[in-house]
């Protein structure tokens, strides 16, 4: 297969996973102006829960749903108990959730150990599909790519074309005014936080099907989703998509052309974007 096409596809599928993680983060940030540093923890915990359920039941989809629900509930708990009172103090929320991630790392290590685990995928996904160019490419990666596109489009439609979405957007622009029109902004906040956490958990199951789940990935994915939302622009779903695709492509092409410095290149991309557009590619000026 043409190396360029292969690397580009790998980059896009990697970007799909980044998008799934980062879209939850950008949603939470966009509405609540708080950054949850426990987002990587949601990713890894989701992956582990999905792995346990999928292995016990033999059903991948059940694992993904179970992980999303379980981590969503955990997100609800974290939001209600730890975050809600300090809504206006974004740095404090960032630090509290950092504490949560510290605890999460340790407990997940205790529960799941240090060995790599991979979410079992259905046998029919373990084939290769023939691309229009005549090349063959793993089906699972293409499924993930399509899944990310579908979820991205659905999220965009819900936010931009529905009543629920308009409430969310109004909350983003002016939560006090939205609340004055009779919307219970607190409930909106809680729902968005739960959806964001559930998305990260879902991404964990998807990512855990493609790459092994390992301790330390919570930190890695937190950082990558931060880079994605910084590059793409805070609070923007299309921005997260562009950011994720760029980060995925840069890291894969980096692996081919400068293997030692692939990670450094990814962050260099962020620095480059910031130097010219501090608010990110599609971000609104702050």
């Amino acid at each position, binding site marked *: 297969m043409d190396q360029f096409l292969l690397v580009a596809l790998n980059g896009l599928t990697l970007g799909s996973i980044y998008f799934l993680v980062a879209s939850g983060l950008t949603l939470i940030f966009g509405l609540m102006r708080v950054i949850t540093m426990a987002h990587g923890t949601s990713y890894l915990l989701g992956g582990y829960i999905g792995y346990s359920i999928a292995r016990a039941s033999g059903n991948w989809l059940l694992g993904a749903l179970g992980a999303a629900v379980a981590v969503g509930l955990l997100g609800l708990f974290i939001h209600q108990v730890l975050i809600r009172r300090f809504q206006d103090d974004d740095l404090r929320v*960032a630090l509290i959730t*950092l504490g949560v991630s*510290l*605890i999460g*790392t*340790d*407990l997940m290590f205790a529960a799941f150990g240090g060995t790599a685990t991979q979410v079992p995928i259905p046998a029919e996904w373990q084939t290769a599909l023939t691309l229009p160019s005549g090349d063959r490419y793993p089906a699972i990666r293409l499924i993930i790519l399509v899944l990310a596109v579908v979820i991205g489009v659905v999220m965009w439609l819900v936010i931009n074309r529905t009543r629920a979405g308009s409430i969310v957007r109004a909350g983003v622009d002016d939560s006090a005014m939205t609340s004055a029109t009779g919307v219970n902004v607190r409930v909106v906040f809680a729902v968005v936080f739960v959806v964001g956490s559930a998305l990260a958990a879902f991404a964990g199951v998807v990512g855990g099907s493609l790459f092994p789940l390992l301790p330390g990935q919570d930190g890695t994915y937190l950082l990558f989703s931060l880079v994605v939302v910084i590059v793409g622009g805070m609070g923007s779903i299309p921005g997260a998509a562009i950011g994720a695709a760029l980060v995925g492509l840069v890291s894969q092409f980096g692996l081919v052309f400068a293997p030692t410095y692939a990670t450094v290149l990814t*962050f260099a991309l962020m620095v480059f974007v910031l*130097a010219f557009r*501090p608010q990110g590619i599609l971000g609104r000026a702050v």
Partner: protein
Amino acid sequence: MSTLPNKGEPITTTPSSPASKRRPILWVRNRWVLVGLVVAFAVLFPWLVDRPRFWIPNIGIRTLWLGTIAMSLVFLNKYVGLLSLAQVTFAGIAAYGVGYFSVTLGLPYLLSIPIGILIGTLAGFLVALIAVRTKAIYFLMITLAIGQVFFSYASQAIEVTGARRGLSPILREDYGFVDFRTLEVFYYAALLAVVLLYLLCHYLANTSFGFALQGIRDSPDRMAALGYRVNRYRVAAVTFAAFVASVGGMILVFDRSQVDPDVVSLGSTLDVLIAAVVGGVGSLGGVFLGAVVLALLDNFAQDFTERYQTLTGVIFIVVLLFAPAGLAGVGGQVTRAIRKRRDRAAPPPPEHQEPQAPVPAESAIQKGNQQ
């Protein structure tokens, strides 16, 4: 710093230093008495413990470098309103500087130490050029990400940093008149450096430069309108904080006798942040209390629990939830609570009209008023 133009009236900032207005002389005197007591304790420390071989390096020296790096974080947060997670990275870059010039190139330490500090400070300057373009929470994320860039670089660039193995040995030497190989000498040298750095931070905060920084923290727009180049001041402050962290990095590297990627890992970043938050983000000296707590936890928690990190995380969150000014602020919190109760006991005020607004000085994190 005195060459900086001092335009307009000196800026008096109220939110962070109201205490100095209320109880001027007594408060200042109390603070220096407290500093004196802490330094006296630190000086006597090697003779107060039962096993100096264990206590001096594991608690004493570790507290000194962890506290110094955390102090640089607190300086930035308290006076500039920026929360930087790259301080341990600057310290690590300085440590790698010493490692590279002494281990790889064979330069004597007397040369490589100033070079290392210079490189760490320069790294702070370069990071500041990018990072000060962003504010508040963005600044935190940028510095966190930049720190991780350096971590991944350090763990991969085998020809410069020695990758995972790092650079070693970086050993303390005997210079005839002082023998740094003995733990006590090293400890006192480090203590002296730390005390000087503390005084320097404190002095700088009270110069016209420091006042300008605090003005920028509270109202960047107004300061810009007064003719101050806001971002230049921020860059200068970050560079200075990187210098402080770099000196902390020197103590660190000679304590560990080597430098490897663990020094700049996410875990080390969190250690520094925890020391700062637990000690008190509003207090330059309080961080050393946080550093002591962390060093003690690190060494003794494993005796009664396997989940040392969970315990640290729980303490971190509890401090953030209930003592936002850290352990250094607990005293003030207790006094306020007692006073409030006494006030309430005298005339019974209507309960539901209690103002709920938090006292600004109590806030853990200075956000600055950045749009």
